[in-house]
């Protein structure tokens, strides 16, 4: 089989690593580590933006990479860790017991979801001059795995992180399909994320004040 070329290969590898980190978040038992994985995933998308900027000569993307790096690698993870810190101690609590199925089955189910996302996006047949089709399909797989993460874990931390990484998946797709998009639109996406952070912050606060735990299991009851 002919080789895909170094630029395409690098973009695909970065996308594949982001998908692997998504799976890492699915398996991770500690909130602290989940937040770290989210930060790493966000760092990767900045790296991808820089790679595309350098190869396709799109200077706008450098600014986007810097902006999204500051927000998603530094600010959002810091905020999340502050929010999830327990009121008494300074150590974030574990969410190991929040699985609705065993970790190995969760990964197998997520592989199925990823396959569905990968092949349904792949069959769209979108080809852009900016970036390879495989990376777009991987972004599709990431969207489904992020939804899977929010379904199989019953704690507010995983729900928030699943939602934020969903935004990472969409950024990846937009970078792949339309890297030449005006900077203004790209920053608008980032402000969507900020809005989501604020909303989730309020939800997490309200939940903590009510139930003193990160688990969402007691929300299924009709009365508190």
């Amino acid at each position, binding site marked *: *089989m*002919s*080789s*895909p*070329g*170094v630029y*395409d*290969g*690098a973009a*695909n*590898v970065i*996308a*594949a690593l982001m*998908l*692997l980190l998504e*799976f890492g978040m699915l*398996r991770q038992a500690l909130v602290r580590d989940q937040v770290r994985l989210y930060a790493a995933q966000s760092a990767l998308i900045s790296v991808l933006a820089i790679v595309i900027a350098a190869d396709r000569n799109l200077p706008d993307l450098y600014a986007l990479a810097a902006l999204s790096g500051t927000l998603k690698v530094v600010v959002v993870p810091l905020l999340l860790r502050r929010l999830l810190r327990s009121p008494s101690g300074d150590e974030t609590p574990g969410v190991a017991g929040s699985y609705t199925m*065993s*970790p*190995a089955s969760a*990964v*197998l189910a997520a*592989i199925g979801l*990823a*396959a569905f996302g*990968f*092949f349904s996006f*792949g069959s769209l047949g979108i080809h852009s001059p900016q970036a*390879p*089709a*495989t990376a777009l*399909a*991987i972004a599709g*797989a990431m969207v489904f795995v992020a939804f899977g993460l929010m379904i199989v874990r019953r704690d507010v931390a995983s729900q928030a992180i699943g939602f934020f990484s969903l935004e990472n998946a969409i950024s990846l797709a937009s970078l792949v399909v339309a890297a030449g998009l005006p900077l203004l639109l790209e920053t608008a996406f980032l402000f969507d994320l900020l809005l989501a952070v604020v909303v989730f912050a309020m939800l997490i606060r309200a939940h903590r004040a009510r139930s003193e735990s990160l688990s969402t299991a007691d929300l299924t009851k009709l009365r508190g």
Partner: protein
Amino acid sequence: MNVAVPIPLIQLLQVLTVALAAPGLTGLIAKVEARLQGRRGPRVLQPYYDLAKLVRKEALAPEGASWFFLAAPLVAVAAYLTIPLLIPVLTTYGLPLGYMGDILGGGFLLSLASFAVAVAALESGSPYAQLGSSRAKTFSAITEPVVLFVVFTVALLTGTDLPYHLAATVRSSAGQVIRPAHLLASAALFMVILHETGRIPVETHTGTSEFGMIEEARSFEHSGPYLALLKWGSELKQFILFTILADVFLVPWGLASTQRLGDVVLAIAALLAKAAAVGCVVAVIDDSFAKLRLFKITEYASAAFLLAVLGVFTLYLGGGS
């Protein structure tokens, strides 16, 4: 150094290099691990002394064990010594016997060896040996799908499942190395190798605690030269798996492309260096991760499976381009 080495001799050298270097690799890994733990550790040559000592000892068989109990170590070592004929150990070009079998053929030989040892463990009637072989068979069934998907990746990349062809494809351009399918399949294979050589996730390689024992328990009832063969066999298996990882997947450079003596000697040196480098990485990994509980092994296998499956996925949609 311009003398041409006859092809049959090169083929023999492939087997001899693996056979002679395998115990040394185990010694090196033990030494590096001990150093990382702040101990002085055994000599690098210690496995050779151990084998020599065992060969001189008396061999005993449990009452009621049939002839197969003593034949199994021979079958296992014979299978392990056949594999170096099938994979690129020293040369970039396929040697005449190299096309006897493909990657699956090599896999069957590895399974045959493990099967023979498991049957011998059953023959012995010892509960620990039986426990070890039962665990080994169960867990190899769990890692089997990962290996199959790695083979699928190779098949999709090269159109064949011959190890020589994959090595040549990887050597052909940088774009082949950076292809996600290749990196994911190599990572999955590495995880399987860590499991198969008893490093991660549950075994302690020195094998003195029965709870985490898989491979080591199987040879409990063997003694003397037969135990030496079993030990040598597991060292051979480790060296062969490292060779497949390095010479087929990760760094298929440094192999001899001609029959010249200088090239072949250089290839032997390169192989030893590559195996030692993989061994050092394995030692660091072995020392820096905690062992898991036995039944957590499914989580480890599912992670490796994830890598292998994603590797195959990315090959669709225009071959990862």
